[in-house]
């Protein structure tokens, strides 16, 4: 399985590039869409939570600092929210190609995870600029975004391997993923910091072991400072990766040549 995937690496690169080109071709703003939307989202959330709901100020020193705080979570979260659903349905979505020619069926999962890396990288650059301009500046700790991003990609790949295989059998997966993401936005520390939940230890720990918290906590550590639950969140995310990845890899090995009969 791994050997076959390695043999297909050239195909992976070219399909990811194609995916990416096709997505933004013939749009006037191109890849700006990929990073502009979360940027606007961060600004709007910052204004709403600072002035309307009035909690932003309790989490950050200023509206601008709260915006940086939000954007540092939105960059990895949006990668997961964009690549996750398409990775989870990748095998079924590639039926046209799969019925004609053999390639490891896990390949489209990697392709969707890889093609979303480029806007993810631009998002990270914007995060750097934002921290420098309106935030409190950055230090060497900003380099933590690299393991943070790697963890996010690994997580999407592991979840994708597992869910895309299950999705062949249970088409409900698509809707389960959408539901999990919309709930996930609130039960993942995006609009609030984990540390503010110190009064509710159980709740804080539950949220920290949510699968999306790991990469977000690393991004927070890289920009606005680390949280007490960082280690817990990261090790929980790694555990999710092992669980999803293990089951996913096993399913992909076992069912590789059978999927196409069920599409």
């Amino acid at each position, binding site marked *: 399985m791994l050997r076959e995937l390695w043999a297909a690496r*050239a*195909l992976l690169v*070219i*399909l990811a590039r*194609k995916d990416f*080109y*096709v997505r933004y*071709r*013939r749009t006037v703003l191109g890849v700006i869409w990929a990073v502009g939307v979360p940027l606007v989202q961060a600004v709007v959330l910052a204004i709403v939570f600072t002035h309307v709901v009035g909690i932003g100020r309790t989490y950050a020193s200023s509206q601008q600092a709260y915006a940086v705080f939000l954007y540092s979570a939105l960059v990895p979260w949006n990668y997961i929210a964009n690549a996750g659903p398409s990775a989870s349905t990748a095998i079924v979505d590639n039926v*046209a*190609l*799969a*019925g*004609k*020619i*053999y*390639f490891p069926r896990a390949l489209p999962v990697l392709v969707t995870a890889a093609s979303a890396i480029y806007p993810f990288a631009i998002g990270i650059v914007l995060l750097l600029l934002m921290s420098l301009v309106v935030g409190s500046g950055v230090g060497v700790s900003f380099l933590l975004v690299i393991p943070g991003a790697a963890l996010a990609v690994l997580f999407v790949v592991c979840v994708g391997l597992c869910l895309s295989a299950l999705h062949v*059998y*249970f088409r409900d997966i698509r809707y389960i993923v959408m539901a999990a993401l919309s709930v996930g936005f609130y039960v993942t520390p995006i609009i609030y910091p984990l540390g503010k939940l110190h009064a509710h230890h159980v709740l804080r720990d539950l949220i920290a072991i949510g699968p999306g918290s790991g990469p977000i906590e690393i991004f927070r550590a890289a920009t606005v400072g680390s949280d007490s639950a960082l280690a817990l969140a990261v090790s929980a995310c790694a555990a999710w990766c092992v669980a999803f990845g293990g089951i996913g890899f096993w399913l992909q090995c076992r069912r590789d*040549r*059978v999927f*196409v*009969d069920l599409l």
Partner: protein
Amino acid sequence: MSASKPEPVISLRDVSKRYVKYDDQPMLANALRFRARSRRSTLLAVDTMNLDIAAGESVGVLGRNGAGKSTLLQLLCGVTAPSSGVVSVRGKVAPLISVGVGFHPELTGRENVYVNGTILGMSSAEIDRRLDSIVEFAEVEEFIDTPVKFYSSGMFVRLGFSVAVAADPDVLLVDEVLAVGDFAFQLKCFARMQEIRAQGTTIVVVSHNINVVRGFCDRALVMSHGQKVFDGPTFDAISEFYNVVGREAKEDAFGAGELADHGAVIESLTLHNVGVVEPVLHFDSGEMAALRLRVRATSDIANPVMGMTITTESGTVVYSDTNLMTPFPALSNGEVAEYETRLALSLPGGGYLATASFHSAAGGNSVLLGRAVPVTFYVSARSLASGVADLGGTFHRVSS
């Protein structure tokens, strides 16, 4: 296997492919009613098949729709695994199944060549080297940097075919792709395929177009209901294929009232070479054939008459005739008789249907006594002639 025989490139040992069909979705509602798995049926698409194909052979696969041809091809290119048995294919396999797999309309011709070429197993260095010849072969030089959605359908398939044949595989699997583009391009494809064949590439052709199978293959298989029912020289295979088609058509038509007794029973309708007892279903264009009708009278028939019609597979009547004006001698109840129509099959290559009916003539009119189930047969082209009839054209230069 004798020592002189080369090791097969493709070998199938007792290969079966079974599909499980779920007639109802595994939905929660059904699971709650404890009947989620109640309606499950299996379909045996390929049934204990054995096959050896040596390096450099080109083999055709013939069969009606649903005979298992496409599944066989999917097994050969590894898209799907056999339910039991062993499929082994040595070397690089390139499927020439539906042209332009992975082509994206928004990408330019050049980008699509790279994507498609990589899918077919070429490295980007190989594509770099072959790009010019691919583009030249497809005749799309001026449009190579235009998104393919602006291509004519002809340009699209030409480019797809060019990439596929440039992949330079050890085994080429061909499925219904040669009928692409205009006539000139088809000839070019045909020539390119012959070249590939001459290089020693093993070719497996699955096609409804018997001309293609006949043009490329020395050997052909006939499949029916997932089983290999014939494996041998292409000419005989085509005859056997029409035999299978005829038999299955008869199974389909049985009970449809066509064989009802109106005073005579049609026992058989067969095609023969003139004076030969064994029936055949494959003729060369221009050859003499005998359409033989065997009848058993179930009443006294004063003026028996035979009618016959030849149609193309699409239903156009090519020829129809009857001996209404000169009936056969009278038949008495219970008598069995055999009649034949001799025909010069001056037809372009292709599949045809022959049918016959049995009548009793009464003063210039006729009463239908029985109608035979059509026989499907194949005529091999003498040349590239096409149309309704083969008028036997020859080509000469007359001016000096």
